[in-house]
């Protein structure tokens, strides 16, 4: 029964914003760039898809709202308000709910795919510092992001990075000894080994793995491990980070899927060796190496990462990012994908199918 017999004076109608263009689509809806008709301020509108939900308003969207309301930090995207649109009676549509965010001009994936956008070491340090500060803040608030990737990192015109898309995020508590979370989280290319092996009692370390992948991308310019299946992803991880064994990761044999996968044995760890072609700075290499540690218990956490020599050695993090102020167009991965015929970010179109060599991984 579709009905709207009541007035909703409690939240604003989305009509106060003028939609300008679609800038993305996530698992749970589309994202539009829009402008407040009165203040002329730009915002991003994220529509929550409703209608076919068997269980009412999606719990994932409720989590996103609850978490974003509680989080206030410069490096976390700011949720300004929630709006609604009226359903139309003839189409039996129920109307939508929109999350209204501050507008950010770019996302990191879009920027990195543009060869004209160049970052120097000190600018990369600044951006990594923003990323890790945002992550440290959410982890201190007992929130796991669970979907970190370059496309979910927004960049303002002033060069401030903001973690976005908390659609998969959830709260964890250190008090509860074991969790039973779903392991079907994080975009494949950024998924930590413990998740791929079926771990359900994971923690903040899964976000740090993704941070390692993103950090390397500042130099490689595309995702470093573009697997096309879970097995393939684990193979790529093994080729870069060495074989996954109980010696490097105690208790790994207790994970559900460890025995199911026939993973390459006696592979050496080559993170620094293989990335050194791209990353010249030894502190940067070391930090990436520590993020891409197989054993989640030994993987560096956001606090220690912020104290890493990378941020405290010359050149220090930059105070601004010069090339961004010269960019007049928004760089969003979504827009680039539409324009080019060779999207590098779609797992299903990846060319990497079961290649035994590792030279092509980057």
């Amino acid at each position: 029964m579709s009905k709207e017999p009541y007035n909703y004076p409690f939240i604003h109608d989305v009509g106060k914003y003028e939609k300008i263009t679609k800038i993305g689509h996530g698992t749970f809806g589309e994202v539009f760039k829009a402008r407040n008709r009165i203040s002329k301020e730009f915002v991003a509108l994220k529509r929550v898809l409703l209608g076919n939900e068997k269980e009412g308003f999606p719990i994932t969207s409720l989590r996103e709202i609850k978490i974003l309301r509680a989080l206030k930090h410069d490096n976390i995207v700011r949720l300004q308000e929630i709006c609604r649109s009226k359903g139309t009676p003839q189409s039996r549509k129920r109307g939508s709910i929109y999350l209204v965010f501050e507008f950010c001009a770019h996302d990191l994936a879009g920027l990195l795919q543009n060869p004209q956008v160049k970052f120097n070491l000190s600018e990369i340090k600044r951006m990594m510092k923003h990323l890790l500060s945002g992550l440290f803040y959410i982890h201190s608030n007992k929130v796991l992001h669970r979907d970190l990737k370059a496309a979910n990192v927004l960049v303002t015109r002033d060069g401030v990075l903001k973690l976005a898309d908390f659609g998969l995020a959830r709260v964890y508590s250190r008090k509860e000894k074991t969790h039973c979370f779903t392991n079907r989280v994080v975009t494949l290319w950024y998924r930590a080994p413990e998740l791929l092996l079926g771990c359900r009692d994971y923690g903040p370390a899964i976000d740090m793995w993704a941070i390692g992948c993103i950090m390397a991308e500042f130099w490689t310019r595309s995702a470093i491990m573009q697997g096309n299946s879970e097995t393939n992803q684990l193979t790529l991880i093994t080729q870069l980070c060495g074989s996954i064994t109980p010696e490097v990761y105690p208790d790994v044999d207790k994970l559900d899927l460890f025995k199911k996968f026939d993973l390459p044995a006696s592979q050496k760890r080559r993170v620094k060796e293989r990335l050194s072609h791209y990353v010249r700075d030894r502190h940067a290499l070391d930090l990436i190496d520590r993020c891409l540690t197989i054993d989640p218990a030994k993987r560096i956490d956001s606090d220690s990462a912020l104290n890493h020599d990378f941020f405290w050695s010359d050149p220090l993090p930059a105070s601004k990012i010069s090339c961004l102020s010269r960019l007049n167009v928004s760089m969003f991965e979504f827009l680039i994908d539409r324009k080019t015929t060779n999207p590098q970010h779609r797992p299903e179109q990846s060319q990497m199918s079961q290649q035994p060599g590792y030279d092509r991984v980057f």
Partner: protein
Amino acid sequence: MSSWYFCSNEIVNSPSRSDGIEITAECRYRREGARFIMDVGNRMNLRYETVATGIVFYHRFYMMHSFKTINRLIGAAACLYLAGKAEETPKKCRDLVKAVRTILSERQMEAFGDDPKEEIISHERLLLQTIKFDLCVQHPYKYIVKFAKNLKDDRAQIEKVVQMAWNFVNDSLSTTLCLQWKPQVVAVSLLHLAAKLSKYNLSAAPDGPHYDHSKSWWQHFLPEINSDVLEDICLQMLDFYDKTDVGASNYNMISPPKITMKVPQSIPYRTL
């Protein structure tokens, strides 16, 4: 962010009042709705936080809508359904309907129409928009424990007081106290009430060399709260007990057991 606290004038002049519902009737609807949420919640083995959150949603919801326009049983069911999600203890709507059926009579179920599940889900949307997606709700329970840990009295005595205060919090959910005062304030007041009724004087643990013995114990936790506020809250609670036959029937039909939510075993209290 909007405030969910109202002065007594606003509570008296609620939407139900403009709709011609007497205040005594509204108080009864609030009490019965709260009881109904507790009963359904207990039947579904939901945690006390989830139940309490559902009840707070219910009270807030009917500060914006009249009991005449929105059926209180459906409203209550939608509140519990949403609280399940908000507190990470989600239940299937189908199971909620099942639990509701075991509690309500055939005739009462008629309010839910032909498709009770759909009815709850569409009310959940109305509820979300009414409460402006404010899903983070705090309750006095955790403050009772937190404050009690800092009291320097006989442990056995405090434990008794805490248990009594905890039961007062359960019962306070049937009143509009959660619309008037922050959970911290309700917590100190109900600890105060429990101590008074146990004829016990509470005193806060000295905290540092600057411990001010002239202050009342609660002012070490909430310096801005004076004793008038405490007295007012205690009176509201006593008034509630005075007017309510706790064992009497609710929502016209069944007699629920005395509220069974107890201080959980894992309460950090024992480890003091």
